[in-house]
């Protein structure tokens, strides 16, 4: 797989890319150079595959709980699902002022999905890539949230919802007015306001995605570095770091969810 530590780390941070090369057509990149050559019109099969798998796992579990939902004594699965729902619902009730049936399911999806994707980090870094290597897959990076495509993909979805609800609640005129006349309500300061507000607007999905990505990526790199130690010494660092992630993984999922609710709540607020 890799001979030097640098190669090992680089190998672990490379996604499995499907794209087209000039000489070979649509194929899987065998090296990092090939992957770079494929440019924008390529797909990270591992990121997409694992995120969809986690999403399906979430929906399958919760759908199962929903199908067998009873008003009598609930089973363990229903209990967990209801705990999540109650938690998210409370969060939405506290943070989101307004009425929108989308917000709570959206927040639940984000929380559980991101949590499941993050939790893939607990799987030791060599297990699944090693297994994939046995089947002739050159690269395999299993944590979708340690790939900027994964986190930006979600935050773009949130961003589109922010734009949609801003326009829906305030109208195009109202939204434009908000962008151009706050914080300084004077015609001469419209360009300055626009610059400030649009920057603020664009910062929202950017920080949302980068915060999650940064945390997960950094954690992953540390796990890979720890994996470079001799095998009998790894647990001394690996174990504390994994235990620390019991805090980090749900926390990052929670932050992503709360910020989504806050941003959408702001999009629903009409100041005029």
């Amino acid at each position, binding site marked *: 797989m890799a001979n030097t530590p640098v190669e090992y780390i680089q190998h672990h*941070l490379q*996604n499995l*890319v499907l*794209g087209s090369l000039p000489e070979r057509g649509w194929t899987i990149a065998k090296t990092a150079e090939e*992957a*770079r050559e*494929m*440019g*924008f*019109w*390529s*797909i*990270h099969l591992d*990121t*997409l595959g694992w*995120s*969809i798998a986690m*999403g399906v796992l*979430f*929906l399958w579990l*919760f*759908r199962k*709980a*929903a*199908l067998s*939902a*009873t*008003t*009598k004594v*609930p089973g363990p699965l*229903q209990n967990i*699902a*209801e705990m999540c*729902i*109650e938690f998210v*619902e409370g969060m939405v009730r506290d943070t989101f002022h307004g009425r929108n*049936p*989308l917000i*709570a*399911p*959206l927040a*639940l*999806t984000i929380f559980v*999905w991101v949590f499941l994707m993050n939790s893939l980090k607990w799987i030791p870094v060599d297990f699944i890539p090693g297994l994939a290597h046995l089947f002739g897959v050159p690269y395999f990076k299993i944590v*979708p949230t340690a*790939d*900027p*495509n*994964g986190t*930006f*993909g*979600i935050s*773009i*979805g949130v961003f*589109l919802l922010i734009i949609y609800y801003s326009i829906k609640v305030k109208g195009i005129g109202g939204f434009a007015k908000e962008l151009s006349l706050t914080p300084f309500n004077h015609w001469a300061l419209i360009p300055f306001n626009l610059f400030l507000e649009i920057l603020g607007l664009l910062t929202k999905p950017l920080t949302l995605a980068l915060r999650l990505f940064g945390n997960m990526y950094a954690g992953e790199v540390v796990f890979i570095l720890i994996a470079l130690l001799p095998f009998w010494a790894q647990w001394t660092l690996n174990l504390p770091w994994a235990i620390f992630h019991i805090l980090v993984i749900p926390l990052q999922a929670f932050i992503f969810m709360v910020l989504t609710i806050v941003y959408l709540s702001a999009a629903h607020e009409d100041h005029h």
Partner: protein
Amino acid sequence: MNINLTLFGQTIAFAIFVWFCMKYVWPPLTQAMQERQKKIAEGLDAAGRAQQDLKLAQEKVSNTLRESREQATQIIEQANKQANAIIEDAKQQAQSEGERLIAGAKAEIEQEVNRAREELRKQVAALAILGAEKILESKVDTKAHNKLVEKLASQL
């Protein structure tokens, strides 16, 4: 770490997951929770009402109990009074009856005594006459000395 189409793939997957969650996961679970909440609230309500009922019933029971106890005491008292009256009556009756019987017996005894006395007197008179005859050795004329005999007899 290149930005590529994965981005939009992720966005689409996200949108589909949210849609599915909103349509098929959230409503049945929240509905079940709400229904359970309602059930629990109803149960608690019913329990509260039952407790109230129980309290009322207990009050009623104790009231009835007290009333019946009072009634029972009254009845016993009345019965006692009646019994006393009956006994008193019976006593009086018995006494008067006894007195009546005693008086009758006394009257009879007196009559008997009087009769016996009369008899005795007569016999004494006869004896006296007989004695006098013996002494006088002659017949006493009963008619002539009747007065004397009578006087003698009455003195006995």
